[in-house]
């Protein structure tokens, strides 16, 4: 059966499992999601399902988006994402809920990491920075050497340095499901999940298990 959902990150807390052991969890409001389109190799060149999440008002969507959603019975949805599947019995209009997941399932979670802005090399790449003492000035969080001198006479491409950090797609693999609340469409995932509270996360079955 297909296991995959879109959700909204609520935040982190801790719960007790049945042995009374504390489990740190990230709570995600996941689903209900609707299959909005099925991609097939004949027409699209690959097979996947398009899934929509987060019901919204029609005025928040463009006419094109509404027209696309009109082909199914799905309500106006804010997010559309695709899941690659080999072959599926799901068809457009099907509803996906957290019932697909069970406690103990291994899942991969994809989110958009928090943006850190223009960050230095110490924060961005874990550089050590320079010495604090022995007459140093302005060296504490400096990049350091970025290459040799006349040979090669240039800085190699891909040299790590300061720049924009975060606000990018991040996957975390093999997280365990620790809580499923089918009534309120909540799923609790052991450990942290990329992104800020309220951000969109994609939950799918673990690739490597």
């Amino acid at each position, binding site marked *: 059966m297909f296991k995959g959902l879109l959700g909204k990150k609520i935040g982190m*807390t801790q719960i*007790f499992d049945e042995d009374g052991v504390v489990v740190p969890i990230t709570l995600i409001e996941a689903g209900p999601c609707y299959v909005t389109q099925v991609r097939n190799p004949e027409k699209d060149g690959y097979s996947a399902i398009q899934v929509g999440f987060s019901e919204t008002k029609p005025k928040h969507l463009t006419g094109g988006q509404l027209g696309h959603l009109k082909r199914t019975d799905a309500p106006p949805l804010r997010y559309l994402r695709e899941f690659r599947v080999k072959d599926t019995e799901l068809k457009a209009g099907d509803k996906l809920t957290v019932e697909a997941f069970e406690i103990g399932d291994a899942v991969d979670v994809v989110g958009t990491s928090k943006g850190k802005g223009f960050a230095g090399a110490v924060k961005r790449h874990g550089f050590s920075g320079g010495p604090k003492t022995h007459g140093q000035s302005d060296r504490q969080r400096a990049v350091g050497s970025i290459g040799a001198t006349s040979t090669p006479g240039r800085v190699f491409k891909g040299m790590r340095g300061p720049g924009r950090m975060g606000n990018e797609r991040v996957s975390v693999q093999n997280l365990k499901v620790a809580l499923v609340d089918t009534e309120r469409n909540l799923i609790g995932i052991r450990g942290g999940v990329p992104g800020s509270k309220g951000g969109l996360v994609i939950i799918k079955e673990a690739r490597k298990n």
Partner: protein
Amino acid sequence: MQELLKSVEAKPNENLPKLNPGDLVSVHLRIKEGDRERIQVTKGTVIRLRKGGNNANFTVRRTAANGVGVERTFLLSSPRIEKIEIERRSSVRRAQLYYLRDRTGKSARLKEKFKN
């Protein structure tokens, strides 16, 4: 969103009495060993209480064999705590009794509190 988080957190264990620093308590803890369950009792002095909602906890200090101090921290909302018995209340002037760590024997005694 905060309400959703609160709703999945464990509720405070209701059969626990109100603890104060300096109380001599016996904490009855359910321990699972394989498929057997037993009760382990830790008897000692409450040296601190920490607030923090779901993560509220308290630390019990006792002196084990050879005068070795043993401290154990329990979560107030833990379902594993069967019960807590307060055996003696002490009159103390601090919220954290860390000074007990540096004391042994007679100097580590606390004055008993007779009325609340």
